[in-house]
């Protein structure tokens, strides 16, 4: 029970994930992104060894299809997994094992995969894919967020007793460096997608400040003063 948009941005070459699920702390399992290497995610019944292995294979220039074949061959329970692999050129494959529960499936587009399991139906991944595609003029992370919001709005997850709320969510982007450019998580919340949007919009206000502070610490404004300037700006904007 999870819905995910995994992608490589055709404009910037960044790789990223937007994910939401009934499980808690889902961001903990999103360790399959590496700049100039690719993006991968295993979900449903997660095999935690898959993401690090897939990244190592991608780093050695194996094709995504071969990486996926290796993950399957290496795992007696692969039929329980849902897997997506994208390489640094945006070549993309996905697999929804027959033993995923509920409605499970994926949609592969140009450099992206929308996938999910225990969903309300195919409309969830269709909505995610569409939201990702129609937001091509937005920043990559905003497209990922738009996708999971669309998945939520299309019905999200359905368990044995009806709709299951999103209790955790995450959005992550990797670019040129081997540290994250954006890594935001909501681990435990009864409306995790809304909370992720709130955290994202708040963090957006600070991103430039944090980057500059690292590059040029001498001249950095104290953070408390920065927070006060934000509050002042908000107040003025409201007037």
């Amino acid at each position, binding site marked *: *029970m999870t819905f995910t948009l995994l992608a490589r941005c055709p404009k910037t070459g960044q790789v990223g994930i937007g994910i939401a699920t*009934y*499980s*808690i*702390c889902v*961001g*903990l*399992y999103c*360790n399959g992104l590496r700049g100039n290497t690719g993006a991968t995610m295993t979900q449903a*019944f*997660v*095999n*935690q*060894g898959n*993401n*690090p292995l897939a990244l190592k294979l991608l780093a050695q220039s194996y094709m995504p299809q071969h990486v996926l074949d290796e993950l399957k061959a290496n795992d007696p*329970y692969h039929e*329980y997994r849902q897997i997506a692999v994208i390489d640094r050129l945006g070549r993309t494959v996905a697999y929804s094992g027959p*033993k995923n*529960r509920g409605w499970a499936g994926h949609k592969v587009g140009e450099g992206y995969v929308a996938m999910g399991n225990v969903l309300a139906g195919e409309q969830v991944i269709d909505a995610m894919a569409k939201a990702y595609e129609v937001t091509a003029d937005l920043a990559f992370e905003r497209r990922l967020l738009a996708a999971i919001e669309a998945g939520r709005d299309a019905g999200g997850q359905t*368990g*044995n*007793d009806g709709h*299951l709320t999103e209790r955790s969510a995450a959005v*992550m982007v990797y670019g040129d*460096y*081997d*540290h*994250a450019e*954006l*890594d*935001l*998580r*909501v*681990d*435990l919340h009864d409306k995790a997608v809304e909370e992720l949007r*709130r*955290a994202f919009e*708040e*963090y957006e206000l*600070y991103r430039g400040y*944090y980057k500059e*502070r*690292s*590059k*040029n*610490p*001498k001249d*950095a404004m*104290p*953070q*408390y003063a920065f927070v006060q300037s934000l509050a002042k700006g908000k107040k003025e904007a409201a007037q």
Partner: protein
Amino acid sequence: MTYSLIGRCARTGRLGLGITTFSLAVGGRCEGVAANIGVCKTQAFPNRTNDPLGIKLMAQGYLPARVMDMFAANDTEHSYRQVAIMNRDGKVAAHTGPGCRGWAGHKEDLDCVAFGNGLLGPQVVDAMIEGFLKRPEDALEYRLMRAIEGGRDAGGQGPLDAHRAERSAAIKVVDRRDFPDVGVRVDVHPTAVAELRRVLEEFKLYEEFYRGRDTDPAKAIPQDVFVAQLKAKRA
């Protein structure tokens, strides 16, 4: 302004980091925790490239002290960084640059380094160590949690007349494999340390269930059934 503790469980070899700060989403800037290699964390005015570099250097066999030398040589603003490094054997190096603001310092003790800046005073770092050492038999994630709670209870960030709330917090622990073993985060919250404790306690209830879905999915019960069982137990 941040206070953190990097530590190691000598019994299991697990490595980890506990951190909290006034800044948002601090857990998204903690890449330097690597199974069988070590922990490296740069804060204050962080150089984001330090931590991945530190892990690569330790993976090649460099000792923490030598890694720190290379950070100094590789970074014109090293005097503004606060860095702690520990390898899998528990060897450490720590640096609090003179450019760090407010009260800033670090302290080593058995299997840990506590370090922070923009703090009320050295009692914050002392309390973190005390929290970490209190129950060495506990799982590392609990020891890290107790460390940051100790730091918070000792006054945390900011001078007396200008206390700064903890707005984000994180714990990250690795075991033998190359993915995180335990990792919980709070990214934007007015009392992030208390919220992190809540998330950690909840995660621990699911930990075995999630592991079972990985290692033996055929036997896994649906999660909504598992959650209903949890609720029944609580009632």
